[in-house]
Each structure stands twice: as C-alpha cells, then as structure tokens.
C-alpha cells in the first residue's frame, strides 16, 4: 500500500505536459485548457447576461450576476478613488476566474483524471498510468504567477500613468525614506531603491503564493482523504469540502481585494 499510495499521490500531482523532456517551452496542457474553458464559461455567462440585461423584472441569473458585479463595484469604489476603466473589470475577472478555478477543487479528485485516463486509453491507446490530469489550475504556480505578475505590470503601468515616468522613477529613489539635502538624498537613494524593489516584488509573490499554497494544500488533503477506505472518506471529506467552499471564495476575494488595494496605492501620490 505504501508504494501504491505514493504512486497514487505522485500520479495526481503530475501535470499533463506538452512534452516529456521538460524545459521552458513545455506547456501544462491541463492547467491551460481547464482555465481557458473556465474563463470562457465566465465570459459566456456574464456577456450573455450583460447583452440581455433587463432593467425591469430581471431573472434569477441576471440577479446573481448583478450581485457579483455590485459587490466588485462597491469594493472598487470604496478603495480606488481615481478614475479608471480597467480596474473594475480587472477585479471582476480576477474574482470570477479564480473562483471558478478554485471550484475545480470541489470535484471528486479522481473524477476528471479517470475520465481522461479512459479517453486516453480508449481513443489514443495510451497507458492509463501515463495519462496525467491536474484539474485545479490555481494549484499550479504558473497560473497564479501569471495573474500576479500581470497585476504587477498593471501596478507599474498605473504608477507611470498617474505620476509620469519621471515621477515614478524619482519615487523609486526617494521613498520610503525622505532625505533632506543633496548628500543625504544620494546616500539614501540605493536604500530606497532596494526597498522599492522588494516592495514591488513582494506583492506578486505574496499574491501568487498565497493562492497557490491554499489550493495546493487543499488538493493534497483531498488526495490524502481519497486514500482512506471508501466507507470512511466522507467523515473527513465532507467537512473539508464544506470548509473549502469558504476557502475558495475567500481566496478569490482576497486576490481581488489586494489587487485593488495595490493599484490604488500605485496611483496615490506620496
């Protein structure tokens, strides 16, 4: 059982890769396709509702969508005081997409991998042991870092748009320690620059790793629960799944909120 269990876990933690050699240009096809499908589901639902939105007598789906939009809109208006057309849609996309990706965690851990194994075995004659599928895209650092680094680019872009290239560059060397006199300014410049770089780097890293860590550990615990005898799985599985409903929503919300906060900090003048 021991080696069997190890194999089972390892099998579940292996990505479906576009090539077996590895290297930078390898794609995680499972992360990519699942997140793409989820993103399109999000867009399809929201765009359909937006197109058919009725001012009077909205249907249930429209009310649901409106509730989410309203929630995001409220948060953005409360935190972000400058004018921006990008930030609210950005926050909405982040919330919904991450939520959907996290939700994949609630599917039975073996469901989609077994479907994939069956398809691979039946139609492509592949060895089931070598068909891999990880269904939670947000448990892949590539997915979380892709978003957090995009947010970091937005932070830089917003800063430059608000303060001008010169203003932003100047701030890199004169904040957080404000110096008086030319000598002190020159002495403090490298210190400030180092602080700013750490601050800039810490934001995407904390964003990405928080989401990744939560989802990865959640997935791992589901896999461990799946190793229990079938009759006892629900004793741990049900509470963990119910708790995870909170976690996946919270993580999506936290990612969205921090993005808004970081962007509002970026446009603020010191």
């Amino acid at each position, binding site marked *: 059982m021991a080696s069997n269990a190890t194999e089972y876990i390892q099998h579940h933690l292996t990505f479906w890769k576009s090539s077996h050699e590895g290297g930078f240009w*390898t794609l995680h096809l499972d992360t990519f396709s699942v997140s793409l499908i989820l993103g399109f589901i999000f867009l399809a639902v929201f765009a359909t509702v937006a197109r058919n939105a009725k001012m009077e007598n909205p249907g249930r789906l429209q009310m649901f969508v409106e509730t989410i939009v*309203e929630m995001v809109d409220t948060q953005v208006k409360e935190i972000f005081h400058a004018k921006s057309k990008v930030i609210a849609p950005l926050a909405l*996309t982040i919330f919904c997409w991450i939520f959907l990706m996290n939700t994949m965690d609630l599917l039975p851990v073996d469901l989609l991998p077994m479907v994939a194994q069956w398809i691979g075995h039946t139609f492509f004659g592949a060895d089931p042991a070598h068909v891999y599928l990880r269904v939670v895209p947000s448990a892949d650092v590539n997915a979380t870092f*892709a978003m957090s680094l995009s947010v970091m680019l937005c932070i830089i872009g917003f800063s430059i748009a608000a303060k001008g290239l010169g203003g932003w560059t100047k701030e890199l060397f004169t904040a957080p320690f404000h110096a008086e006199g030319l000598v002190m300014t020159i002495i403090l410049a490298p210190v400030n620059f180092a602080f700013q770089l750490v601050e800039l780097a810490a934001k995407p890293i904390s964003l990405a790793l928080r989401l990744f860590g939560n989802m990865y550990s959640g997935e791992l615990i589901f896999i461990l629960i799946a190793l229990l005898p079938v009759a006892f799985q629900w004793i741990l599985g049900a509470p963990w799944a119910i708790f995870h409903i909170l976690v996946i929503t919270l993580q999506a919300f936290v990612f969205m909120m921090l993005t808004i906060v970081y962007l509002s900090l970026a446009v603020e003048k010191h």
Partner: protein
Amino acid sequence: MEFNATLLGQAITFAILVWFTMKFVWPPLTNMMDERAKRIADGLAAAERGKQDLEAAEKRVADELRQAKQQATELVLAAEKRANQIVDEAKDAARTEGAKLVADAKAQIDQEVLRAKESLREQVASLAVSGAEKILRKEIDAAKHADLLASIKAEF
C-alpha cells in the same frame, strides 16, 4: 514548482479575459444598473411629489367645501329673509287693497243710499204733489202756484 511557458499562456488568457470583460461585460451591466438606480430614484421622487400634490389638493378641496357650505348657508339665510320680506309686503299690499276695497264699497253704498233717498224723496214729493194736485185740482192753478209747488217739492 516549475515555471514554464504555461505562465505566458495563462497571462495571455488572463489579458484576453480582462479585455473582453472590460469591453463587453462591465459597461453594459453597470450602465444598466446605474440607469435602473436613477429610474428608481426618479420614481420615488415622483411618488413623493404626487403625495404632496395629493395633500395640497385635499386641503384645497376641504377649503372649497367649507367655503361652499358657508355660501350656501348665507344664501339660505338671505332667501329666508327675502321670503319673509315678500310675505310681509304681500300682507301689507293685501291689507291696503282690502281696506281700499272696503272703503270703495262703503262709498258706493253711501252713494247708493243717497241716490235711493233722493229718488225716494222725489217720488214722495211727486206723490205728495200729485196727491195735493188731486186734492187741490180745482182751486189751484198749476201755473199760478208753480212757485209754491216747487218750494213744497224742495222741502221733501
């Protein structure tokens, strides 16, 4: 943890999702919701205005009703007064007329009585004269005693 091209792919997907949301999801939804909020606010304001209008109208109606009642009371009072006046006038007129009629009748009666007395006297006089004539036919010449006869006649 292994970083590879998946990160780029995810970033591109993310960018497309954000762009699409920005273009086709967010603006129509928020516009619609803003417009709905405005419409609701307008509706509430209109309802408030309507309520005020209604209150004002009710007040005006009450005022007019009170005024009309007052006017009606005044009219009734005036009419009663006028009616009394007319009745009084009519009574007066009737009384005057009655008195006049009575007076006329009395005058006529007096006249009739006078005339009857006159004709009676004349008849008595002529009877007396004719009686006296019959008695005195022989001795009295009518022409001679005409004066006498006339004086006798006048005495009646």
